[in-house]
């Protein structure tokens, strides 16, 4: 295996590379009649609205712009470079076929406000995707509108809110319950939808503590947010009892779909008793994450909640597809248009390509890969897999480096950085908080046995190094474009620089060195 070395360019900010007078792009020239229609456009603007000084954008030639950004791209790790076992993020391969389809002008140049008669193909695709997602999750109706997972969560909690409001119970149902192992977006979404958050602890098996849950539910309960399998990668076996407890108290069950990759064709949130589900198309359904987005977070519901779904929904009357915005009980709109349509199209193509059997194989291989890594990590010094020994994980495992940290001083963060140094993206670390020195590993289905073997070998090598020469681990990474960064300086009011402009201001205010 070749040694990893990331490209390192001393790439100045684009503002520092400015080359006055250079221009990279030329516009088509206008016909004489068009120019004559408004010979001096700026002069027609009122003084209060005319830009007085041009924006201080850099001036560059086309090759300079391209080189700058290609160099930057070379200092960025990605799925197409190798293993990306980032827990809860489901970093699977993103098929190039989907990129080509999303770039098709017959999709990409179509406007969302076109008359429905002119966009039947796109509406057909979106309608069918709604149906497929409902089938996969066991729900009755779907909206594609949410632009990300957290946006889907907000949508889902607002649906719960509307349901209770419609029954005249919103005044009393003020609480959303979340387990202590939940993703941070769950409590944040609940709060944004106007609810108080009640946290229930996990038991020593890493599952929702039923006693604590019984104690937490009441007439104030609006709902419970849960992911299953949970963030430890464990299936919540008591899910039926959990659903019963919450439903009996009059609350609803919300399924955080971040871990849906563990369920395809094996188990469905709808069958577990969930009333609302969000999916992450950029996780489970292979759409690229683009360095942070755009993703998509479609939301599905059981029939009693369907009247509250956001408008418009893509609908079909047996002959034609149309946008249904005549829904009097709707929570309203979540997005200016129909959400991240180009992401939705990619997910449609992925499901079409995988098919019934393929989707099930996705989950089977994802679960096999996670457990294989867990098994092979046995006996690697300093690492343990806390909670529920002997229980198979689902799509991800959470390893604790507590012993390593205790015995060598090498923390989960150090392990993560040492992995980067060997050309492997770090797992999610320090989450969930119920595991000390957590390393959350989700290999996904798209990596081979050979690659997983190498991953474990590298972890063993790091462990060995931690015990033999911990300082070497602490000095990592040095094969990446930069070493460890000063996060305190980045956040300190005197040195904080969030833009080039702010950087220059702070620099000019700083006392001379």
């Amino acid at each position, binding site marked *: 295996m070749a040694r990893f070395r990331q490209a390192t360019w001393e790439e100045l900010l684009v503002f520092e590379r400015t080359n006055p007078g250079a221009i990279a792009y030329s516009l088509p020239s206008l016909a004489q009649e068009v120019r004559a229609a408004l010979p001096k456009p700026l002069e027609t603007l009122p003084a209060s609205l005319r830009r007085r000084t041009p924006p201080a954008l850099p001036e560059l030639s086309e090759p300079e712009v391209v080189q700058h950004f290609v160099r930057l791209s070379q200092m960025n790790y*990605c799925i197409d470079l190798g293993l990306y076992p980032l827990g809860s993020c489901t970093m699977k391969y993103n098929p190039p*076929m989907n990129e080509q389809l999303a770039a098709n002008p017959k999709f990409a140049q179509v406007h969302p406000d076109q008359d429905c008669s002119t966009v039947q193909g796109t509406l057909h695709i979106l309608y069918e995707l709604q149906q497929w997602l409902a089938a996969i999750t066991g729900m009755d109706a779907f909206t594609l509108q949410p632009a990300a997972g957290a*946006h889907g969560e907000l949508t889902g909690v607002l649906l719960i809110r509307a349901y209770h409001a419609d029954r005249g119970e919103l005044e009393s149902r003020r609480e959303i319950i979340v387990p202590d192992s939940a993703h941070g977006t769950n409590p944040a979404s609940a709060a944004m939808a106007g609810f108080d958050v009640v946290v229930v602890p996990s038991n020593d098996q890493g599952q929702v503590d039923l006693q604590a849950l019984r104690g937490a539910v009441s007439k104030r309960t609006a709902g419970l947010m849960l992911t299953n399998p949970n963030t430890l990668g464990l299936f919540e076996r008591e899910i039926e009892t959990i659903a019963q407890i919450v439903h009996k108290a009059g609350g609803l069950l919300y399924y955080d779909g971040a871990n849906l990759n563990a369920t395809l064709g094996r188990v469905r949130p709808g069958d577990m008793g969930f009333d609302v589900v969000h999916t992450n198309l950029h996780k489970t359904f292979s759409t690229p994450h683009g360095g942070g987005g755009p993703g998509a977070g479609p939301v599905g519901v059981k029939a009693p909640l369907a009247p509250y779904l956001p408008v418009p929904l893509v609908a079909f009357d047996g002959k034609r597809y149309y946008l249904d915005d005549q829904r009097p009980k709707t929570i309203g709109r979540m997005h200016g248009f129909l959400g991240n349509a180009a992401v939705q199209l990619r997910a449609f193509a992925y499901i079409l*390509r995988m098919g019934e059997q393929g989707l099930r194989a996705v989950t089977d291989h994802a679960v096999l890969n996670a457990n294989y890594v867990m098994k092979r990590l046995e006996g690697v010094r300093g690492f343990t897999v806390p909670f529920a020994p002997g229980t198979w994980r689902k799509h991800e495992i959470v390893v604790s480096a507590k012993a390593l940290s205790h015995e060598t001083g090498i923390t989960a963060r150090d392990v993560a950085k040492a992995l980067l140094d060997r050309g492997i993206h*770090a797992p999610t670390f320090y989450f969930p908080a119920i595991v000390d020195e957590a390393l959350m590993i989700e290999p996904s289905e798209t990596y081979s046995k050979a690659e997983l073997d190498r991953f474990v070998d590298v972890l063993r090598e790091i462990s060995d190094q931690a015990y033999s020469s911990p300082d070497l681990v602490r000095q990592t990474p040095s094969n990446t474009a930069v070493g460890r960064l000063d996060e305190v300086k980045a*956040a300190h009011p005197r040195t904080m620089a969030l833009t080039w*402009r702010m950087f220059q201001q702070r620099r000019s205010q700083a006392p001379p060195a």
Partner: protein
Amino acid sequence: MLAALGVTSIDELFKDIPAKLRFRGRLGVPEGLSETEACRQVEALLDQNWNPSQIVSFLGGGVWPHLIPEALKAVVRRTEFLTAYTPYQPEISQGMLQTLFEYQSLIAELVDLPIVNASMYDWASALGESALMTARVTGRHLFLVPQFMSPERQAVLRTYAGPAQLRLQSVRTDPVHGSLDLEHLKESVRGETAGVYVENPAYLGYLEPQVEAISEIAHDAGAKFVVGVDPISLGVLRPPGDYGADVVVGEGQPLGSGVSFGGPLLGLFGCRDDRQLLRQLPGRLIGLTTTQDGARRGYVMTLQTREQHIRREQATSNICSNQALCAVTAAVYLCLLGPKGLQQLGEQIMQQRRYAEQQLAKLPGVRAPRFDAPHFKEFVVTLEGKSIRGAEPVKISAVLERMRQEQVLGGIPLDQRFPDLGQSVLVCVTEAHTKDHIDKLANALRKALEVS
């Protein structure tokens, strides 16, 4: 691998799922296809759309057609950007972090404010978040918006504001000029006003010139001044930071992202360098710093204590995934155009729009533009004529349908959205249109009116 686990089948790995819950049926998804078959099937469906290369469209209203440089496409297609996750590991993600820092910096120059976040979902959700932010900063519960704004954007704002008990109230707009009724604004703005919002350009295309007066009225009442922008106009239009905006939101899609059936979009979000505002800012921020040894510059995600993964229910927003790749797109776009390109683009768009207004205004019974005001790239056209049968007014919906038969999509009909505006349509003209396109628009409208 199964042997390593000591199991004989994958089924055993799912044994902890209660038998009753294990799914044994068929999902009802079709059987899988090869790449070629799947592509053919999707392409066959897309063939059922009207072919964009055979029609001329003047639809805008929040998603607008603009030219996209090939160099931009080449950069944004790179899988190093496309297939990366959020840059949680800065040492191995400097490319994305520096590019997003440059995005924040470029937008900051454009809007003339020192702080810009790394993106929101779209203009509508950015507006919703801005309203919540002004409420948190001021501890107040009223948000004033103009009478005429995008119905979709307003609907999203309402969705966001509701749970926070934030009330929305419209300020009257002058029916002739489209500008805000300052007297009504003064009456409406009260001690409980968290924010006053205006758009430049407005949804209906006209500009709001009284920005300084509005800023003063808002600030005198202790409210924050929030301005929504189309950033592609800011090569020629005055930036909101220069006229008192505390918060700027907007739609970044024109900066190199296609129309794409309305998504992905790019929510802009920026604010003044004010500690109170910064502490309440939603979304990710990239900061410039150095390596720990101080030897090299580097970039990190910063001020994360505002965010959901640290602060949970106390976070300023629940946003996690944003629209990073669209921000990359906007950064490359702005670098390709530069200050001169962006100004020239703004001027061209205004000239094209003016030419279109003139061609349409020549037609009998057509008022273009409806509002007596400066405009940028969109304008309202109102049909004032009677139908050929004489009795009832010409219906915009019927006229647009006839224009469609000529392969011309004439704009967004406003009769349902703004009944007060009569039989009107919102027309968008950009640098992506040619003179021929505009002549075709005028011709199609003429023909449609002749038979209406």
